[in-house]
């Protein structure tokens, strides 16, 4: 699943910010699956908010590095962890 697919799938989730975290509720066939609720941490929440169909890995990594004041390697690792999590959930 590439970034564009993930960005397009965002519309199939209801979301709610809880503190720094973001709760995601998947909607399947227009019905919420509350038991498949998913939580993103602060970094994941930031990526989710900034992810759109124009996004690239490079741009998102740079944005993470700037927002959380981490080096680019750390930002890339964080992004890949997020993408793995999110793909698991979307394929769920």
């Amino acid at each position: 699943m590439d970034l564009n697919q993930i960005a397009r799938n965002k519309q199939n989730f209801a979301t709610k910010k809880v503190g720094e975290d973001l709760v995601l509720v998947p909607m399947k066939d227009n019905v919420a699956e509350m038991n498949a609720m998913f939580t993103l941490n602060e970094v994941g929440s930031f990526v989710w908010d900034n992810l759109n169909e124009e996004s690239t890995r490079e741009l998102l990594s740079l944005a993470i590095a700037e927002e959380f004041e981490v080096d680019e390697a750390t930002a890339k690792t964080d992004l890949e962890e997020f993408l793995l999590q999110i793909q698991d959930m979307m394929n769920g």
Partner: protein
Amino acid sequence: MVNLRLSIADFVIDLINKSELPIKLEDGYSDFVLEESTATASVQVIAHAGIPDSLQPATKPIYSADFEGNKLWEIFRIEDGLLFHVYSSTEPYQLQQVAKLNADLTVWDIYSEPVLDDQKSVLFPLLYPMGPLVMYYLTAKFDAIMIHGSGISDNGLGRIFTGVSGQGKTTMAKLWFDAGAEVLNDDRLIIRNQNGTYQIYNTPMFYQDEQRSAELKAIYSIHHSKENTLIKTEGASAVAGVTPNLIQHGYTKDLISHHLKFVTQMIDTIPVYKLGVVPNNSVVEFIRDYDR
């Protein structure tokens, strides 16, 4: 003209009979009838006799509820609100009622087929599962939720034990009853935000019970365990511990957002715990000791 007023979770529900037949309620509603009240109704239920052909849906349902293989109700979107086809809970696929709910979620028109009661034709506008549907949309309209759980009042401390089926909600209610607590209900509860405090209410069931309520002090998401354990959850984890057990028709993001918003606000003041339960009276003392 209002024929009957109900008070459920301190919501006033007006029943207006537009038919020539008398309207009746299941026994579980008898203690929820308001004898005298000038309070403003939260919702109006207008009862009609017979199901008109004109209320056949033109589209596919947007939501369908089934229980043990039987259809309970279907929801259709219509121009000015929602249309419900409600099926008998005892005779599979027997259409029991058709109901329209306005877009503002404040007026129900419920068309019921007459039934014989003591050899007289009568209407049961809130016959299960119609009544719980009316209650659910009350909570969706206002600052409230419905939840599967056991609610108890332990010397005025309201506690809710929630979890998926089979994790011991009813057992917990019995254990607390044996320990002297009041059981509000062991299945379905309404929680309301009343100016920053959270109140638990029982709702009419198929059996008769009085109106019960208590101020909510803690929610416990329960699971079987070899020993009693209690872990306080925070933030998203607390939301995830409560929200899956809400009674919900999650066919729009608006409804989901309503539920998530309520729970997120509630956990700011009401602690949510993961409770591992040994199903005997030790768990009652375990929780009471924790609070001391």
